[in-house]
């Protein structure tokens, strides 16, 4: 077994890295924020987003490069993000652990719950 620590990915971090993947070459602060907001119907603050981006970058899951300067940005370049190979592994690991968990749930457990709710 791999030690769990190797691929640590928080819940919001996972959402962000997935969105970076979704946007592919168009992932920068504002676009990521908007994408999450429309897809997940939730508010994302700049603070939370950039903190998550910084942590992902310092873990080596994403990398960044400076992009173009648009008129609205007052001379500040966009910073685009891309998933690294390590990031991909982390995502896959996270996904497989969830799949494992899903698979391990006995069918009956879910059915009982459904019954309980009705």
């Amino acid at each position: 077994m791999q030690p769990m620590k190797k691929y640590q990915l928080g819940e919001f971090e996972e959402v962000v890295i997935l969105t970076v993947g979704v946007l592919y070459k168009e992932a920068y602060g504002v676009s990521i924020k908007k994408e999450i907001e429309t897809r997940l119907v939730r508010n994302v603050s700049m603070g939370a987003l950039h903190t998550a981006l910084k942590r992902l970058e310092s873990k080596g899951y994403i990398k960044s490069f400076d992009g173009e300067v648009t008129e609205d940005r007052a001379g500040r370049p966009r910073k685009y993000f891309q998933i690294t190979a390590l990031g991909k592994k982390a995502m896959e690991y996270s996904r497989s652990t969830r799949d494992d968990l899903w698979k391990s749930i006995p069918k009956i457990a879910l059915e009982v719950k459904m019954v309980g709710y009705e």
Partner: protein
Amino acid sequence: MKELPPKLFRNFFRWYCHPEMVGHIEGDMMELYAERVRGSGKRKADLKFIRDVVLLCRPGIIRPVTVETNVNQYDMVKSYFKVGWRNMLRSKGYSAINISGLAIGMTVALLIGLWVFDELTFDKHFNNYDRIVQVMQHQTYNGQVGTQVANPAVMAEEIRNVYGSDFKHVLQSSWNNNHTLTFGEKIFSKTGSYFEPGVVDMLSLNIIHGTKDGLKDMNSILLAESVAKSYFGEEDPINKMLRLDNEIDVKVTAVYEDLPENTSFQDLKIIMPWSLYLSQNTWIQKMEDPWGSNFTQTFAQLNENADLETVSTRIKDVKINQQGEEERRYKAVVFLHPMNKWHLYSDFKAGVNTGGRIDNVWLFGITGIFVLLLACINFMNLSTARSEKRSKEVGIRKSIGSARGQLITQFFSESIMIALFAFVLAIGLGFIALPSFNTIAGKTISIPWSSPLFWLAGIGFTLVTGLFAGVYPALFLSSFQPVKVLKGSFKMGKLASLPRKVLVVFQFAISIFLIIGTIVVYKQIQFAQGRPLGYTADGLITVGVNSERHKHFEAIRTELKTENAIVELAESGSPTTEVWNTNGGFDWEGKDPNLAVDFPNNAVTYEYGKTIGWQITTGRDFSRDFATDSTAFILNESAVKFIGLKDPLGKILKWNGENYTVIGVVKDILVQSPYTPVRPAMWHLSENSENVFIIKLNPNRNAQESLSKVEEVFKKFDPTSPFDAGFVDEAFAQKFGNEKRIGTLAAFFAALAVLISCLGLFGLASFVAEQRTKEIGIRKVMGASVNNLWQMLSKDFVVLVIIASVIAIVFAYFYYKNWLEGFEYRTTISWWIFALTALGALIITLITVSFQAIKAALMSPINSLRSE
């Protein structure tokens, strides 16, 4: 028109945000802002912008306090020291001045630090340091309150009986005197006391051999390890028999570790039982009034829970309660003086503790700090003076990205490096200077090489010194603005050199203050030494008396006189430099019945006056021709004045009810402190209570020859005692020990302060000369003479030193006047001291500065103008 978010919040964001992230996050925010303005108007966009700024203010985005957290610190530190090292090598002269100046300052601080530590830890060796006390008393004599350690021999017993519950031990003890110990061929004189049992516990003596209960046996003796070694070498000393003072055999029952030098009992080398003292001095138990005479000491140890002040107040009447009506006039107040005050707070004036050596501790401590401060000032001054040279460096460093913090660290590491070099040098210098310092200070201090505390304090002190010396350059140099410095528009105005000037004035004021101090102290000593002695100390020696010598007094005298070795020989109750006996119980016609008097009253033989050469003003000396002289007094002039005798000859003085006739008056004889008036004193004849021989050597013969002749004769009549002669003039010179010590140390510090200040001045002068090289060159071309240039360059410094002199003189006048007032016999502070010191300071300044000034003035203008 393009809308902009609130400036305040944008700037706030820029301030707190990590510099690596500020760019793109601000970009994102601006992009969103523009979009929001378009969508829902400026007001809402502003509010959302503010919300974003506030929510972004979280860890991970906020900048760290120091920017370069991720930079490898090791490399940077290495670079600091490398650059510092190169800077030091590049300007060897300045570095030498800095390091040597600081090293001298640190050496002084080191020596004084060791000395102060030694003083403050005095007596701390004892486990019961906080509990041990000495029983002392205040008594009122001649209308004045005197304080003394001498107590009646029954003091301890009485305190034990009445107030015993407050004390663990109350012990009576004799004075710590010389005793002759004989073991076979070995005869030595050792110092020690008689003590009651319990002293071993009280002083927590470390018993090496034998038993601590030894003192309970009357004929026993306890030896310090060094004493035991000198008699028995490696043999077992226990149960060996020694002969004590040629009178009685005592058995060694214990050997204890010698007490360290910095304790009050450093000379307690042998301890004998108090019971032995009583049996040797049978008169003590036969005394009519055992409370009437004070001739022993009392030490005690308080119980754990006893409060010193309370107990001290409780026992205050212990003596007066035992005294008769007559004796109560002395108003004896018994009190406890705790061990932690014995050494540093031993002075009493009018019954109040007024300090003592602690004054010296403060004096030297402060002087040491000041001398170190002077050295730090040199460092500051030279660094800031040179700052113009380094301003370009600062400019370039800043423009290629040095943060101010890094520059500060750079400068601090340079100063700390120099301080460390100075520390190493100071340790070396201190090691070399320590023996002579010990001689001056009368100590046996050594550098505690193996004490971690010493090294910790030393290194800590060095770092503090380095930081202190470097703080001004570090903060000042690092504040330069790169643009101004590099454009060359950077000029230091007049104000820039002001702090430097203030510091120079400060340095010289302290130096001058110390020089004046040295002169005043020496003048005071000289003044006191010049006081008339009232007798001739030249060739006068004292030798101890014992029963054997006393018996052969006449034989010794005759033999020495026929050998022509001496002029005269007399026996006396006290040496001429001390008072060993004072008496009360005097009465005379017209005496105020309430006056309790106490006079030095010396018992002497007929030849005393002739031996010491006293000067009789009226009447005559004692003479064998008058049988009535056995009840006669010779008074000194002070006594005549005190008693109020108009025509003293033939007047009757009553002493203990007996009539004594005044037969002569002598000029005042200086016996005790050379700084206080001579006490009223008197002499009478006695055959029995003598303690010393006083011998006048033949002045026409070599003193050493005479002395060995005297020794030969003494050995002939008393072969079993060591011959211990002391010169009276040496004993008298010792009275100036403390003041001489202060004088020597003041001279030492003053010399160093001047040296350090001059080093600094030398550096500054060379800096100024260097800075003005071009100006001097042009002036020379225009026709200025060397003399003009020399004046120009020296003037500034001379003005500073004059200001310093004025300040120092004002402070010195008040301080030293106050110091002198502590002496009843004192010299005056005359104006020539100030004039001389100021002139001396000026001359030294001129010499220091002129070297550089003349060098600069003599330089050929071609060289100075062609440079660059």
